[in-house]
């Protein structure tokens, strides 16, 4: 029986269109054997939460570079909770000031990957995390 593939939703919330990072991560995770759905640009937290339910994903990766993370992340976590998606691992990649990290983790974000992170580190983190759950 084939092993079940890890399912990941890569999402680009907010108004920003800089999608270089999101696309690289989507491709790296796919190359690492995961099933990846990329939402495309300008997704609201509602759209991301619905897509996560519909695609039944294990992991959501948010790419945020614009400084809107403190608004977007708590909204998404609340919506996921309301939809009963309490097991989904939510990751954030992008430009996040160190000072904002504790509050984001408090809100339920599993990990925050800052600029310069190797794609292998993200792959390893997801494997470890999903194996545990």
């Amino acid at each position, binding site marked *: 029986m084939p092993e079940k593939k890890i399912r990941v939703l*890569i999402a680009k919330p*907010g*108004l*920003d*269109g*800089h*999608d*270089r990072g*999101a*696309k*690289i991560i*989507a*491709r*790296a995770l*796919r190359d690492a054997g995961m099933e*990846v759905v*990329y*939402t*495309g*640009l*300008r997704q*609201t937290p509602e759209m991301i939460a619905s897509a996560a339910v519909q695609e039944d994903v294990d992991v959501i990766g948010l790419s945020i570079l*614009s*400084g*809107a993370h*403190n*608004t*977007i992340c708590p909204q998404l976590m609340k919506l996921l909770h309301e939809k009963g998606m309490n097991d989904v691992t939510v990751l954030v990649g992008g*430009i996040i*000031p*160190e*000072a904002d990290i504790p509050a984001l983790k408090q809100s339920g974000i599993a990990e925050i990957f*800052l*600029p*310069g992170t*190797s*794609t*292998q580190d993200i792959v390893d983190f997801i494997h470890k995390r999903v194996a545990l759950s």
Partner: protein
Amino acid sequence: MSEQRKGSTQTVPPSEESSAHREPSAQEQAWEKNTLQPALEKNPERQTEFTTISGHPIRRLYTKANLANWDPSRDLGFPGEPPYTRGIHSTMHRSRLWTMRQFAGFGTAEDTNQRFRYLLAQGQTGLSTAFDLPTLMGYDSDHPLSEGEVGKCGVAISSLADMEVLFDKIPLADVTTSMTINSPAAVIWAMYLAVAEKQGADWKEISGTLQNDILKEYIAQKEYIYPPEPSMRLVIDTFEFGVKNTPKFNTISISGYHIREAGSTAIQELAFTLRDGLEYVEWGMHRGLHVDQFVPQLSFFFNAHNDFFEEIAKYRAARRIWHKAMVERYKSKNPRSWALRFHTQTAGCSLTAQQPYNNVVRTAIQALAAVLGGTQSLHTNSLDEAWALPTEFAATIALRTQQIIAHETGVTNTVDPLGGSYFVETLTNEVERGAREYIDRIDAMGGMVAAIERSYPQREIAEASYRYQVAVDKKEKIIVGVNDFVAEEKPLDILQIDETVAHRQAARLKKLRADRSQAEVDRRLNALRAAAKGKENLMPFLYDAVKSYATLGEICDALRDVFGTYEEVAIT
């Protein structure tokens, strides 16, 4: 024998057979045999292949043999003369230094006005405005989608009232201003012209640059609103309006910067940017403008990345390709259309969050490449920009970097100091050839709009970007402080954007809507809508609308009603 080995990070266009027909001189052959080979046996080289940051292969040594078909009178020429390889002015930076133009904008119009006046007081010679994401996307600060984004990546401008504050006590008759705005560029420009008029500045005399480059938005930065056709119409409307009313204003800044930031190679940046330029020229001519009427108002904007010589070759090749296209393809007769003028910004994507003070060094080297490549204006990034918009401290060092290059290094004393270098001339030829191949491919697809609709440039960039990331992950490319020479460090003090900006903007908009004549706003927005359905130039209608204090969001919505919006096919 062949030394051309394919590197794993090599770029797609196979323009690397550059030196395939190389015939080394007897002296060079003797050197290889007597000096090189014994040395290699004793000390092998560090790598089996050397490539630029774009993956372009680089030889051990360049000699006359690399320039067998190179004719200096044809390919190099003299500065200020075709093909402009050596620069567009005969004296270059000996007469006039480049414009030191630092991109700035955050918070409210008051915040940014203060930063502008500070930068001018520090010796900056031109202004450059960064708008926040809601403004770039044509939403007012109080729109639901603006939540969390107001004033974050730039200044929040929702109406002429904000624009009046932004340029308060800044004489637009004397200062040149660049505005980084694309989809709503025509609207923001109308606001700027209204402020200029109010200050009593003569439109015929004011100068500055509107970015207004929608094609690279579809290709790279993705801040588009409308589909390509109506977006191109708006761009050509500004060209036409500019020819008649603001002859000294650059109505567009055709930008490779964002293409490079999205992960392209140097050759892709050059090729897609110049092909975008040709697309605008063709749409302008199709409108009925004569090439030499509007092309002198088109300007360019390139990135300055880490690979020093590749960047210099790129700027030199850019001028040569543009000149040739204007003369041969469009039969231009006006030298002002032939000379490619460009702004440069150092590469934001090269800045590291780790050991951020190293970014001062990176930026200085990148800026030097831009200067040696003959730039007309320059923005140097600040050391903290991998984290946030710059603090005043960091922005000042960035400006000082340019001043040091200009006044201390001596590189401005002579024109094109690298001209005639076997390496630089060969690389210029290779970059030019690589870009031409891309341009030919896009021509064969039916032009840039057609290529964008097929996701061709988007896909090429995504491929290059992924290849580079793989090379970095494998440590084939070293980034100091990131994948080597790593150290523990303390967080940097960064600029915090005041979270009350959105509330202050919302309050200002509420008051604006209460104070203005709603009937007048409605009348002018309806006139705009009606004109948008026809073929008239929309600039006068946009100007009327902004003067009634219709907001940016209202105006963009009126055009959304007529033009619809654009959704891209997401590729990964």
